[in-house]
């Protein structure tokens, strides 16, 4: 990062400075800041808030109907006694998902985005005013069902978990590379349907994910039948322990990939 003005010169854009040979502040202002600078600033603030309250925050992303809420219901059944869980639900309309979560005895705040196709850090920040983080260990943010837009917005979460249901086709990571590149874990959901569908190959889906240079853990499971849910529960508990260790060491964690985020970080 340039020390002069706090801009964001990275390996990817350094040539702009080198070739032009200028980094001056006259009629032309060299800015080099992320277009989502404001969002990212609020996201960092949210993350500090989570860390201060020792909360592990997971952003769940997928297309609509891939089973995010069902996964949360099962997760609450399995871990609700051990951890205090909270959920922020993002949908264009209705409180339906928050109602399903509350029926499991867990606090849920519904964000209705109206026409917006994604959650952003400001919306999450507002929702946090309705949630007592002192009473939460693990916070799930169920993003708007959409495989495109949510990937661009940091919310302050520690991990991105992307769901891919067996009814969607195993080539989704190749079709939506931005979304799947951002995944810290990929869950292939509705595995109980694998047999009847016959054309979804979890290995192929994993290969498409690796083609995005993403080493994220892949778990094939079913919230309905309970198959391999233990893998997810174990993953979650490990991440919770790591989060507590990080907080004890005064550190935090950003999701594996945030557009520009890694580059900006590395350049410091």
């Amino acid at each position: 990062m340039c020390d002069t003005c706090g801009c964001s010169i990275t390996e990817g854009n350094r040539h702009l400075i080198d070739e032009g040979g200028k980094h001056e502040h006259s009629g032309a202002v060299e800015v080099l800041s992320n277009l989502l600078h404001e969002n990212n600033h609020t996201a960092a603030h949210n993350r500090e808030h989570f860390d201060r309250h020792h909360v592990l925050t997971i952003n769940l992303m997928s297309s609509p109907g891939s089973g995010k809420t069902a996964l949360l219901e099962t997760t609450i059944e399995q871990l609700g006694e051990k951890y205090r869980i909270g959920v922020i639900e993002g949908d264009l309309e209705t409180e339906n998902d928050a109602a399903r979560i509350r029926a499991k005895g867990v606090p849920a705040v519904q964000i209705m985005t109206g026409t917006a196709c994604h959650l952003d850090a400001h919306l999450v920040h507002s929702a946090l005013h309705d949630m007592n983080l002192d009473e939460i260990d693990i916070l799930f943010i169920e993003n708007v069902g959409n495989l495109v837009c949510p990937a661009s917005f940091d919310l302050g979460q520690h991990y991105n978990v992307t769901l891919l249901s067996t009814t969607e086709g195993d080539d989704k990571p190749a079709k939506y590379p931005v979304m799947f590149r951002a995944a810290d874990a990929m869950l292939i959901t509705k595995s109980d349907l694998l047999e009847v569908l016959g054309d979804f190959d979890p290995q192929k889906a994993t290969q498409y994910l690796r083609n995005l240079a993403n080493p994220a853990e892949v778990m094939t499971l079913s919230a309905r039948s309970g198959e391999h849910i233990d893998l997810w529960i174990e993953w979650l508990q490990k991440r919770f322990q790591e989060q507590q260790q990080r907080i004890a060491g005064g550190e935090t964690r950003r999701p594996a990939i945030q557009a520009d985020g890694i580059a900006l970080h590395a350049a410091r």
Partner: protein
Amino acid sequence: MHELSICQALVDQLEGIAAQHPGKQVAEVYLGIGPLSGVVPQLLNDAFSVARAGSCADAATLHIHESEIIVRCLSCGKQSPATANRLLCSHCGEWQTELVSGDELLLERVELEAFEQSGESSQKYH
């Protein structure tokens, strides 16, 4: 569809820059956008014409520089061009690579000009 949100954030940043330069308005805006940023340049361009209305960038022209995807192999260390859904090393075929460029979503440069009330500048840039 999130391009409009991003343009609104861009206009907010432009307002901040213009506020530091009294008497000037934004004339040219240069962005660097990578294929892995999740943003479509054409949609961003369309959204900008909506988002800039009534702002300090009302008469501004948007220039988008589309960067290429370049990866560095974690195994052989070489760099190679790649495509959005195949970020593999083209030298040794290894999938474990890191991105050198291609996910930019950057406001690179802004050019300002003296504010003209006659509307001359909007003709100049349209």
